[in-house]
């Protein structure tokens, strides 16, 4: 494990290769300085290698770019491909809400503000993990506590919910009556 053999100085090509791998595996954008520390290389040498790498990404017709963000470097998809990427992400499994989450969201959307016991009453099953999912996805928000026994938390839909579902406001939610016409057309 311990390296006894004398360390050959890295060429800029070698450095670029290693930098690309390291920037690729990090979870967070990483600064040239941090990279220089890890690799025990001169900070300016690392900086110029990164810039050369960024240049390379730009020159070849790549779907990716090396960009500086939040004080660090990161590999990301090119801005002009965002439409395709978004469309693609929609098809990923994680893009799908579970039936439980969906049902819970439907109840909250139509009955808001609504408490957990009320959701249980309507759905007939516990919705705790569904609610957590919806909170994580920022589709619902806390709407304060209800002034009743136990003061249960109330939930309602968020602004993100409106954006996600393409609604101007909640009045745009279709009503049950609208539904009959729409499904017959499908």
């Amino acid at each position, binding site marked *: 494990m311990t390296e006894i053999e004398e360390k050959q100085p890295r060429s800029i090509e070698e450095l670029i290769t290693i930098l690309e791998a390291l920037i*690729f595996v990090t979870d967070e954008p990483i600064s040239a300085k941090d990279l220089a520390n890890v690799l025990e290389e001169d900070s300016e040498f690392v900086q110029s290698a990164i810039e050369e790498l960024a240049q390379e990404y730009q020159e070849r017709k790549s779907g990716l770019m090396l960009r500086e963000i939040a004080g660090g470097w990161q590999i990301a998809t090119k801005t002009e491909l965002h439409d395709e990427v978004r469309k693609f992400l*929609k098809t*990923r499994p*994680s*893009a799908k809400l579970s039936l439980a989450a969906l049902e819970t969201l*439907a*109840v909250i959307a139509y009955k808001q503000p609504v408490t957990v016991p009320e959701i249980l009453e309507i759905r007939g099953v516990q919705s705790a993990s569904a609610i957590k999912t919806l909170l994580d996805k*920022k589709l619902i928000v806390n709407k304060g506590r209800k002034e009743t026994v136990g003061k249960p938390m109330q939930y309602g839909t968020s602004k993100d919910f409106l954006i996600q579902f393409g609604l101007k406001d909640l009045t745009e*939610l*279709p009503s049950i009556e609208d539904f009959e016409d729409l499904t017959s057309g499908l």
Partner: protein
Amino acid sequence: MESQPEQLVFDFFKEQPQIIAERNDEELKLKIGEFAGPLDLLLYLIRQEQANIFEIPIAKITDEYLRVIRLMEKLDISVAGDFLVMAATLIEIKSKMLLPREIVEENDEDADDPLKELVNRLVEYEKFKNAAQMLWEKSTVEQSIFPRGKIETDENNSEINVGVFDLLNVFQKILSRRKEEIQMEIEREEMSLSEMLSNIKLRLKQSKTFNVTEFFNHTRSKKELVLAFMAILEIVRTEAVKLLQENIFGEIILTKG
């Protein structure tokens, strides 16, 4: 297209099982380099004797095997039953080999020669032992390859493949489900979980697929619905079945895997 095997810069070290008895603070400890089983131990002993698998010096190997087993017992290492079974087999073979050849042949007509059978098992086992080594090497190579770090969309894929009428659709289904429940709760005989389980299993047997959504819709009470749900969970856990849902609001289908 064929990805070139990368040049590897690390060593594969092979872990050899070994028996080391060591005295340590008046406490005798036995380190048994992990033997994966009696066949593994047997192969090891054959190697130690530098013998060929097809010409096992059975008497010597049997004695060695028994010595190791006794050592393990003496040192309070619980000897698994499988090791003892092998010991018995070896003793049997050894005693047979000691008999004059004619008698053995008269009795068995080489029908089931236990030594031959053992050799076959060893040959077969050794293939898998070597395959295990190959897997180990592959996983070692794989551990030198890293996927990209997390990006924002991994855990927070904000894109949701759902429209507003889907939402209404689901809501309406919940409401009608509630209505049915109230109607059905008037008179009922309760089912038990095991009745529910065998009910579903029977249906699965009759046809390869099973419409879970429909089944849920036909439950007659909230309790029955809960039982049905639990039964489905149990079946998914214990049986080779898959739950399929073609699209988000679609019906859920249980199919035999």
